[in-house]
C-alpha cells in the first residue's frame, strides 16, 4: 500500500534515514538467502510503485552477497483491487514477469508499506492468474499494522506502530529524490 502523502502539511518525523534503509535492505536480502537456502528458486516481484525498485535492490544485494542471479519483475495489482468502484479509475502500473514465468518458483512479493493487507490480497489473486508458484512470501520495508485481512509478512524492514490518522511515506531515490521513511500527521 503506497501512501501518497508527500506534501501532507503538518508535523512529520523521519523514521528511517538513507543509511537505515540501506541496512534494512541488506538484512532482508540476508534473511531471504537464509530462509530460502540460497535463493536459487526465488523470483522477486515488486508491487508498483515503490515495491519495484525495492525488488531490484534486493536482487542486487543477493547477487553481491552470494553471486546468485535472482529473476525480478513488477506485478501491477490495480485491476485486482477491491476498491475500484469506490475510488475511481486509477492509472495502471507496469507489469513485467521474468522470462521463466513463476510456475514452480518461490515468489517473493515486495512492497514498501504493509497496512490493510488488501494490496497483498489483490497481488495473490493476480499471481494465481499468471501461473502456479511453489510458494509465495511477502517482504515489506515497513509494517504499520491495522490489518483488515489475515495476512502477514515473511520479511519486515521495520515495524512502525501507527494511528489511522497518520500517514507513512516511503521515499526512494528511484522515484523520489532521496531514501527515507517519513511519518506524517497524527499527534506527534
Amino acid at each position, binding site marked *: 500500500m503506497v501512501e501518497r502523502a508527500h506534501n501532507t502539511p503538518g508535523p512529520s518525523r523521519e523514521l528511517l534515514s538513507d543509511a537505515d534503509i540501506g541496512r534494512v535492505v541488506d538484512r532482508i536480502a540476508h534473511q531471504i538467502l537464509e530462509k530460502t537456502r540460497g535463493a536459487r528458486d526465488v523470483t522477486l516481484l515488486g508491487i508498483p510503485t515503490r515495491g519495484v525498485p525495492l525488488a531490484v535492490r534486493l536482487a542486487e544485494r543477493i547477487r553481491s552477497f552470494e553471486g546468485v542471479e535472482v529473476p525480478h519483475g513488477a506485478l*501491477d495489482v490495480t*485491476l*485486482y483491487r477491491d476498491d*475500484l*468502484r*469506490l*475510488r*475511481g*479509475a*486509477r*492509472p*495502471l*502500473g*507496469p*507489469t*513485467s*514477469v521474468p522470462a521463466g*514465468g513463476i510456475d514452480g518458483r518461490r515468489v517473493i512479493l515486495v512492497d514498501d508499506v504493509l497496512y490493510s493487507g488488501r494490496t497483498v490480497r489483490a497481488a495473490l*489473486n493476480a499471481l494465481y*492468474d*499468471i*501461473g*502456479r508458484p511453489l510458494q509465495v512470501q511477502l517482504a515489506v520495508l515497513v509494517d504499520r499494522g491495522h490489518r483488515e485481512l489475515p495476512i502477514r509478512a515473511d520479511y519486515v524492514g521495520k515495524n512502525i506502530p501507527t494511528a489511522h490518522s497518520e500517514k507513512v511515506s516511503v521515499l526512494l531515490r528511484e522515484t523520489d529524490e532521496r531514501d527515507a521513511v517519513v511519518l506524517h500527521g497524527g499527534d506527534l
Partner: protein
Amino acid sequence: MIRHLLSAADLDRDTATLLLDTARQLGQALTGREVKKLPTLRGRTVVNLFYEDSTRTRVSFETAAKRLSADVVNFSAKGSSVSKGESLKDTAWTLQAMGADAVVIRHPASGASHRLAGWVDGSVLNAGDGTHEHPTQALLDAYTMRERMGRLDGLRVTIVGDVLHSRVARSNVLLLRTLGADVTLVAPPTLLPVGVETWPARISYDFDAILPKTDVVMMLRVQRERMTDSFFPSVREYSRRYGLDLRRAALLPDDALVMHPGPMVRGMEIAPEVADSARSAIVEQVANGVLVRMAALYLLLSGEKGAE
C-alpha cells in the same frame, strides 16, 4: 475521466495519453499468462447494440469486455424488437431498465450515440455512427502508430481514400491532431466532405508527391454501400490514382508504416502484396483494438460511485 466516449474530440491530450498508456499496461498484464482474464469489471454488464453489421468491431468490444470479466449482451438490429419498429429511445429505456453499465452502439445515423447518451445512465461508447465518428478505431490506430514508430508528436500521417464516408478518417484527424501528429488527407475531390478545409489537416490530390514525406499511410476502404452517386468513373481509375500498389509503396521512406482500418478490398485501395508486407500493421491493428477497448471500458466503468 469522461463518462462517455462519443467523439475523438472529447479527448484532450492527457486523457488520450492515459487511454493509450492504459492499453499498453493491459497488454503487459496479459502477456504470457495462464488466465487471459482480469477480474476488474466483474458483475458489470456491457451491451453491444449494433444497428449495422460489423463483425470486427463487435467481436473486438466483446472480447475486451470479457477479458475484463464483464457480462456481455449482444443486441443486434436484425431479429430484435428493432426490426419490429421499436425506436432508439424505447430501446434505450429497455437497456436502462435492464441495468446496462455500458452501451456500445453502432448506428447508421450520425449522432445516434449522442442521443443515446442522453437517455441512459450508463456509459455510452460510440462504435461508429453513420459517417460521423469512430473514436475507438482512432485510438487503436494511434496506439499502433505509437508502438511501431515510438512517438506521435510530429509524425507525418497520410490518410487516403473515401474521406467523405469515413468516420474513421474524421476521428483519426481529430485525435492525431490532439496528440501532435501532422495529418494530410489525399482523396479525389468528390470524396472529400463539405467543410473539410476547416479540419486540422492538409489536403492533397497528388498521392505520389506526398508518399516520400509520409511516416504512416492509412488506406481507407471505398464504402460503396454508402454511395448513392458515382463519385469516380471506374474502380480501375480509382485504383490507379489512389490505390497503394507496389510502385507507390516503394516511394515511402524505408521505415514507413502501412495501415488499414479494415475490411480491406484487396486490389482496390491496396494491393495484396502491400497489405501482406512487413511494413503493414494491419493485423496488429486488430490485436491492438482489443487492448484499447479494454482501456476505454476500464477507465469509463471503474469507480462510477464516488468519482463523480
